[in-house]
């Protein structure tokens, strides 16, 4: 890790704590920061503010942290392994694939056991990833940023059409899922969190373990082979990590687009090309980013709450366009 990285990590953690506190303080009723702190360290059941903080706001802030970290790390891995600046679980269709399977299972087969949700999401993400890469690799010229993004966009459009179709055929079952499908942190049950957590932690650990090899891979397959990296194995494991992280994020919050695109690029600007630094910094930055975005989602059109996923798209899409202009 670079000097700046070591120096920056405490600053990032401070930013995370600040954003976390702010996120809890903001809402229909503003809770002062010191009360937030009190509720966390000296919980008083009779204090209404304390109840609001621990029962409603704290879980939501925790979701934001987890989902932001998971998506950012997934994006970082994808960009490193594919050497594609536009790679991201959302752009390449993994989020839609994961949510498609979840929607179908919940809507059609009444799967409500939260234990299965991350598993189903992982299944969807894995199949979509295989499809998108398969198509892009089979195209003349191989998996370029263009073919990957196009294949991702096509699969997204295709699955979205099927989700709309299912929604039309069975309004009642699917109405419940509509808000979730835009990517939201509101009103999620803690059961899902419990079952998603193992996936998330596993994915993050795997990402950290792979970081050194991914740094070599980001310099090109041949260079990596020359440096003694088992390219096929690292790619496979990286993909596993991406799928686990995507599955956990989707299970908690639905498809939250462009988080994985923006954060790794920012992380790279801060700490350079070493993925041993990029991965942890992306995780923290992703958490901060989603906390701030979620605050914005609740405040901009207050009292109406905009889905967090809409706000990440509003912020991420221009960034995508800028990347296309600057980097391709």
């Amino acid at each position, binding site marked *: 890790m670079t000097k700046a990285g070591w120096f920056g990590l405490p600053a990032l953690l401070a930013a995370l704590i600040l954003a976390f506190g702010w996120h809890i303080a903001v809402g229909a009723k503003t809770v002062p920061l010191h009360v937030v702190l009190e509720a966390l360290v000296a919980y008083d059941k009779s204090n209404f503010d304390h109840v609001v903080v621990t029962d409603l706001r704290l879980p939501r802030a925790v979701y934001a942290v987890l989902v932001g970290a998971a998506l950012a790390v997934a994006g970082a891995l994808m960009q490193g392994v594919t050497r594609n600046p536009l790679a991201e679980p959302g752009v390449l269709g993994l989020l839609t694939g994961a949510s498609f399977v979840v929607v179908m299972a919940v809507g059609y087969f009444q799967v409500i056991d939260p234990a299965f949700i991350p598993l189903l999401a992982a299944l969807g993400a894995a199949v979509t990833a295989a499809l998108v890469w398969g198509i892009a690799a089979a195209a003349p010229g191989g998996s370029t940023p263009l073919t990957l993004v196009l294949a991702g*966009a*096509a699969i997204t459009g*295709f699955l979205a059409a099927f989700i709309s179709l299912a929604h039309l055929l069975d309004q009642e079952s699917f109405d419940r899922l509509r808000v979730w499908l835009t990517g939201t942190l509101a009103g999620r049950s803690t059961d899902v969190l419990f079952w998603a957590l193992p996936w998330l932690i596993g994915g993050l650990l795997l990402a950290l373990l792979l970081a050194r090899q991914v740094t070599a891979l980001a310099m090109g397959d041949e260079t990596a082979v020359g440096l003694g990296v088992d390219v096929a194995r690292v790619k496979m494991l990286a993909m596993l990590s991406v799928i686990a992280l995507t599955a956990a994020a989707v299970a908690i919050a639905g498809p939250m*687009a462009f988080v994985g695109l923006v954060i790794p690029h920012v992380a790279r600007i801060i700490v350079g090309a070493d993925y041993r630094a990029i991965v942890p910094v992306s995780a923290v930055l992703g958490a901060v980013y989603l906390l701030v975005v979620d605050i914005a989602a609740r405040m901009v059109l207050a009292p109406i709450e905009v889905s967090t996923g809409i706000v990440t798209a509003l912020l991420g899409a221009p960034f995508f366009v800028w990347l296309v*202009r600057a980097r391709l």
Partner: protein
Amino acid sequence: MSVLVLSPWNGRISLRLHRHALVVAALLLVALIGVSVASLMSGSYPLSLRGVWQTLTGNPPEEIAQTVLWEFRFPRTIVSAVAGALFGLSGAILQYVTRNPLADPSLVGVSQGAGLAVVSAIVLFPEMNLVWRPLLAFAGALIVAALIQSIAMQRTGGATMRFILTGIGVAAFIAAITNTMLTYGDIDQAQAALGWLAGSIHAVGWPEVWSLTLCLAILTPGLIWSARYLSALRLGPEVSIGLGVPIRAARIGMITLSVALAAFAVAAVGPLGFVGLVAPHLARRLAYSGVGQHLLLTALTGALMVGLADFIGRIAFAPVQIPAGILTAILGVPVFLLLILKTQSTRQL
């Protein structure tokens, strides 16, 4: 390849036509009429072929047939065909001008721009007269098209690839704004807008028929004028200049025409995806021909596609009606993927 040269009036007018393409055009027309008739016959109140004929000629078998056919099915059939033709033509022109086989109004943000304009109108000004919709859609689409052009074209080289990717990014951004608009809006209006966004033709009536017919009438001279220039433009900008094409004016004119075609179709039936992408390719596979005839074939193919999508959507899960936009996406995406796989040189992307 048999080419027919028609030179009436002492060669003052002369046209080159491919015989095979003419045959295919005739077949497409027959198929379109077939689908239209089937579409007139079927629904919750089924009519026989005879019944349809009798009603159209003015002596319906039952009173209700008159209403069902004239007020609902007939406008719907016409609108789906015309809108399909407009989408197809829009995509074909875009593909010729950008020399990009993957260009499509719904893929490069034009449909989304038109969609956002109309959704904003539905949500913010629910009382607005339908007449304004095509103009709003056109304005929205034009702004987005200009935005994408200005972003994608500022640096040299690889411009068509950047054009497509920029379009995808801008489309995602506009979709997010549209979603915000839906969240912000009143639930009833949001529902109406949502239904319209899915690309549905079930709500159309005679006003849409007239507005689309008017649009087609206005744009047809432009289309005829454009065919000649498109045939030169498809050889690339520098060759076109060498052949004497006023390139800047021609490009701006064509893209505006393409945007207008898509916008008017979107205003009537919502942003149907992939028709503009698939119809031109399908038309070319059916019969190889010059640009003018290719446009004709594309229009017929697009009309047939949307007509068929609407028809299937109406009967497949009856009484639930599936919006045509869902079906065009489900049918269009595999073709799109096939195109990615088959495009011969990535240099053209």
